[in-house]
């Protein structure tokens, strides 16, 4: 039988090898449904890789797609570190996007160096405030945050649709349910002329570095990790568990809100109710692939973004449905979970013991 022996410490090479291996296993597993669909497996996978990183344009597109995923990945990573199961990044993203157009689409007129920070702060606050509700429900009433955050995603999306059909509808929008465009002064500039890549990516990388320092090098970061390791022990040790949870909620919701700001102010320019194709949920996969490390979130978000961009391009070329990307993402999550056992345990095959 198989025995799991807990590791004292994890070798560094394993922490890199496991997510990379999980990605490869996911691609392998995905070839099964591809084969069943009667598609040319190798060609599809090669086309996906080319579509994701085959040339400068493809790579820029992948990085553009990775930008919101870094934010939502960080949101999940910091929350899961404290065992706060925030599955509501999708809703918090929309809250941030809504705040972005509320502030940035004409309410305030100011130069860019005032308006851009203002928009970002508003978006982060909106996302944070939204997550504070389930956190309070959890700490005050003991209500499971998973279900509450999940259900709130649907409520927020309906609220966004209501605003876009009502008070925030663009009168110049030809009747489409979309918001007025954000002002030029509220727009995140493009990084390279002619590409869609924008300053949101820089902000995302800065956020990842900031979170890395915060979690690993500050007192509150230590408290958050302690609460995640063992909330009961943390409470006995006199740590402020409730405050730590609230802080995690603010950071996690704020980061998810920034994902919305970055998409609206950096890429789309206005808000529609199909802004996010599930960036919030994909953030959970990104964070898990990164083993909840803020810096690891960057490569892992680029990988997941590449899968989506590559699958779109492959689908256009040979007509295999781009839902293939969702399959790869789901397989990646499950494989890295299983692979994670290797980093936490040594696995020994022993002869069955007689009881």
């Amino acid at each position, binding site marked *: 039988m198989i025995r*799991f022996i807990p590791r004292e410490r994890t070798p560094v090479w394993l922490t890199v090898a496991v997510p990379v291996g999980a990605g490869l296993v996911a691609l392998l597993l995905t070839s099964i*449904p591809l084969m*069943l*669909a*009667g598609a040319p497996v190798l060609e599809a996978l090669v086309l996906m890789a080319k579509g994701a990183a085959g040339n400068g344009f493809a790579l820029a597109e992948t990085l553009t797609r990775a930008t919101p995923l870094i934010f939502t990945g960080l949101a999940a990573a910091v929350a*899961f570190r404290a065992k706060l*199961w925030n*599955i509501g990044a999708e809703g918090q993203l929309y809250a941030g996007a809504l705040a972005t157009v509320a502030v940035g689409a004409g309410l305030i007129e100011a130069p860019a160096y005032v308006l851009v920070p203002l928009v970002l702060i508003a978006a982060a606050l909106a996302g944070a405030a939204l997550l504070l509700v389930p956190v309070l*429900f959890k700490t005050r*009433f*003991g*209500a*499971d945050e*998973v*279900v*509450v955050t*999940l*259900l*709130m*995603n*649907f*409520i927020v999306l*309906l*609220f966004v*649709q*209501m605003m876009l*059909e*009502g008070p925030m509808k663009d009168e110049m929008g030809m009747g489409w349910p979309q918001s007025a465009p954000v002002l030029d002064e509220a727009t995140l500039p493009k990084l390279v002329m002619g590409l869609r890549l924008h300053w949101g990516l820089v902000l995302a990388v800065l956020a990842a570095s900031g979170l890395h320092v915060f979690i690993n090098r500050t007192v509150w970061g230590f408290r958050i990790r302690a609460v995640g390791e063992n909330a009961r022990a943390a409470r006995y040790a006199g740590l402020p568990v409730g405050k730590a949870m609230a802080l995690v909620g603010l950071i996690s919701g704020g980061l998810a809100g920034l994902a919305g700001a970055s998409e609206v102010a950096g890429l789309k320019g206005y808000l529609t109710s199909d802004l996010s194709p599930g960036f919030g*949920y994909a953030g*959970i*996969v990104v964070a*898990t692939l990164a083993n909840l490390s803020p810096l690891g979130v960057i490569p892992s978000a680029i990988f997941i973004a590449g899968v989506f961009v590559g699958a779109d391009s492959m689908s256009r070329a040979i*007509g*295999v*449905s781009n*839902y*293939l990307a*969702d*399959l790869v*993402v*789901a*397989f990646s*999550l*499950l494989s890295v*979970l*299983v692979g*994670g*056992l290797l980093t936490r345990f040594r696995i020994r095959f022993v002869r069955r013991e007689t009881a």
Partner: protein
Amino acid sequence: MWDAFDILLQANFWAATIRIATPLIFGVLGALLCERAGVLNLGIEGIFVAGAMSGWLAVYLGLPLWGGVLMAALVGALFGLIHGVLTVPLGLSQHVTGIGVTLLATSVAYFGYRVAFPNVGTPPRIEPFPPLDVPVLGDLPFIGTILSQQSAFTVLAFICVGLVAFVLARTPLGLAIRAVGDNPEAVEAQGLSVVGLRIGAVMAGSALMALGGAFLTLSAFNAFYFGMINGRGWVCIALTVFASWRPGKALIGALLFGALDAYQLRLQTITGGAVPSQIFLMLPYIFSIAALVLVARRADYPRALMKPYFKGQR
């Protein structure tokens, strides 16, 4: 104003209540079976999608309606097996694994549908379950109207409530399932397999969840649509806490939710656009959260819920 009360007197309202509640009855029964054995199954949302798609596809490809029901249950059990193996013997996080199973089951269903129907404008249809034809009762004025809008699939849901309640409360198997969710050490001491019981319960529960999805494509509608589940699975997880893990209360919770949903749909037409429709559409989700928050303090969670069990380890 009277219109708002008048809704409650319409047979159509009560018929819709039962129709909306039916998939939730399956879902809550499935979720409570998993959780009674100590495993939270957040794969439910995806398993609903997979059940809806596979049951429908099986019938579309020529199986009889009940064959489609069976197919959905088998597909549900298969995803249950995945969730069970990953969370029980391997002890992985039930939260994240469940989300993973939801992502997997949803993408398998969507990808499979796109492969089977690459470019169709309108979704292909099947001949769904016919309305019930009950002798005597069906001829009664009010009750007859309600019954004539239900199908045999709904009857199956009510049978499942009784069945799950009986098995859990009155059989040695039910006792073992309840024990494995409360005190796995005691089960092990009895010489029973914790792993086997838990995986079995998760598979059975997942099969029930898939039936909830299949009801939508085989009885409530006659086609498969993307996004048709739309959070119904998550609602079931909330209702499970509300029902304190009891099949009888699960039925009441699902019916209450169905009544609220049916009521808001009718209220929308009465208010005639004075209130944005999205406000009404939010109500069921708000209701679910409120129900969860209200009962959370005194909720009697299965004691070993989300606690992986490893043999010979405390």
